[in-house]
């Protein structure tokens, strides 16, 4: 059991001891870094490839069809066929585009997506770097994606691209705030930015999602996370029915594929971070820690794909209103509730925080009710005559 739990850690350790027998002392630290980097650099794109397949399968089933099942058994070679197709496609750059920025944006957008993987605890002891500011690192990196989306949009010199980029920036700025505020309660309770410490604080069944503030925080964080990675129903930046393909209108071939890679890797990392923060990360009984981590992450990814199969795209004003008028006040109240919860004794704190949250929720619902204008009746001026 212990060996299965630590199989990846042990594999790395044995590789290191084998390498130490013939490599000089100073190079082992570089080797250790290289092993982690290689593992992440392989894991990220492979995950992305199979997430595309999974998404097409799931959405297909939701729409009462099979999804890809021709290339290889169960369509398992479909991502490779797609990759070959993407690589061999002609790379078209618009004449008036800013050539350098147009090239740079899709290349650089993958970097933050890959870097986020380094602070995700995949299992007990399975983390590339246990940063003491892990969550801050994640927040900072995930928001830099916006810059490159905007660079891509601007460099394309296309109205639709620019509109998509603008929408993306507006959306990210709005959703960043409730997202950060929904994480703060966890930091408040745990007292650390480190992802490893956060997971360890949720040992046993003390997952944060089972506390009143945890449920609300989890929902806010998950929804803002979906908005953060530009997925349906928050995919205004690439609303294909309105603005062709948004920021990647002018991209084709491998550059287009890189945007997709960044999006799907972000999907995975957001799900992983949500699982880490609120669902107890790799904590769980019986199964090895990394199996628990992947179960939780893929459950969240499934919900994201389920969203995609269910919801139509939000309108811009609905999107902004939801972030500013509903999620932001709720996140602030949630922060207060988490503060109260930590300072009261166990049975009392749950009741108090539950009451505050239910009242706030209903107040916000009441304050956000749609404004229906009174039905006007017109009287014919000469009706009585």
């Amino acid at each position, binding site marked *: 059991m212990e060996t299965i739990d630590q199989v990846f850690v042990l594999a790395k350790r044995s590789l290191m001891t084998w390498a130490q027998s013939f490599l000089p002392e100073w190079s082992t630290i570089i080797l250790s870094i290289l092993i982690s980097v290689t593992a992440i650099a392989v894991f990220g794109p492979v995950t992305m490839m199979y997430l595309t397949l999974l998404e097409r399968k*799931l959405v297909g*089933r*939701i*729409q*009462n*069809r*099979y999804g890809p*099942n021709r290339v290889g058994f169960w369509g398992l070679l479909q991502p490779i066929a797609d990759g070959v197709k993407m690589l061999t496609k002609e790379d078209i750059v618009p004449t008036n585009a800013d050539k350098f920025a147009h090239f740079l944006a899709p290349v650089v957008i993958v970097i933050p997506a890959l870097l986020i993987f380094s602070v995700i605890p995949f299992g007990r002891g399975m983390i590339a770097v246990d940063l003491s500011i892990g969550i801050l690192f994640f927040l900072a990196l995930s928001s830099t994606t916006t810059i490159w989306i905007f660079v891509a949009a601007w460099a394309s010199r296309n109205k639709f691209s620019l509109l998509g980029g603008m929408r993306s920036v507006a959306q990210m700025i709005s959703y960043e705030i409730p997202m950060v505020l929904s994480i703060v309660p966890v930091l408040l309770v745990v007292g650390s930015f480190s992802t490893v410490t956060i997971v360890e604080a949720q040992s046993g069944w003390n997952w944060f999602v089972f506390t009143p503030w945890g449920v609300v925080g989890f929902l806010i964080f998950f929804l803002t996370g979906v908005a953060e990675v530009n997925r349906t129903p928050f995919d205004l930046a690439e609303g294909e029915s309105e603005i062709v393909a948004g920021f990647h209108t002018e991209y084709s071939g491998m550059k287009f594929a890189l945007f997709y890679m960044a999006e799907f890797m972000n999907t995975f990392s957001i799900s992983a971070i949500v699982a880490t923060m609120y669902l107890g990360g790799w904590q769980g009984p019986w199964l090895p820690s990394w199996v628990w981590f992947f179960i939780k992450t893929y459950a969240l990814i499934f919900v994201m794909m*389920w*969203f995609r*199969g*269910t*919801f139509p795209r939000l309108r811009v004003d609905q999107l902004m209103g939801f972030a500013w008028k509903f999620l932001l006040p709720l996140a602030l109240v949630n922060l207060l509730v988490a503060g109260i919860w930590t300072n009261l004794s166990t049975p009392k704190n749950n009741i108090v925080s539950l009451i505050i949250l239910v009242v706030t*929720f*209903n107040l916000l*619902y009441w304050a956000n009710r749609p404004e229906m204008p009174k039905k006007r009746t017109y009287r014919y001026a000469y009706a009585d005559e």
Partner: protein
Amino acid sequence: MFGWGVIKGMLVTLKNFILSYFTKERLTTVQYPEERLPVKERFRNFPFLIYDNKPEDLRCVSCDICAKECPPKCITIVRDSDEQGKPLKRPKVFDIDFSICMNCGICEEVCPFDAIFMDHEFELAKFGRFEDLNYRKEDLLKPAEHFAKIRPQDAARIEAKRRAKAQPATPETKTQ
């Protein structure tokens, strides 16, 4: 409750997702090359020439009506003749160009000798654009049993009509 509509919507898609693994109504795709829908009897695609017992016994008498009636003019018929140059009641050339044919079935309707019928064959893609799609007489020939198999109702009706027509005029047909 706030958000109830969202949950209801998600349950609808979840129902579709789960039931697609169990019921046929939720997964209506027919995976074509392996699975096929049964072809309806009145389905028509491309004509074939019918023969009764052996391929020389064509019903076609090369009357040229179908070629004249054919809207896109895809049928070419050349009448056969014997050594003295006397025309015979059988075609020497009977070509139908599938690249022109529009599968209307008018040839079948106008044929007074019940010699040409529409087939159920629809996988007719070819690699060549010209000669491969030009069907010769030999490619078009099919036995009467084939017709009886693909279109049993039509075959029974037409056989009854032919038998009724053949009964009183038996001696005359023999002399031909």
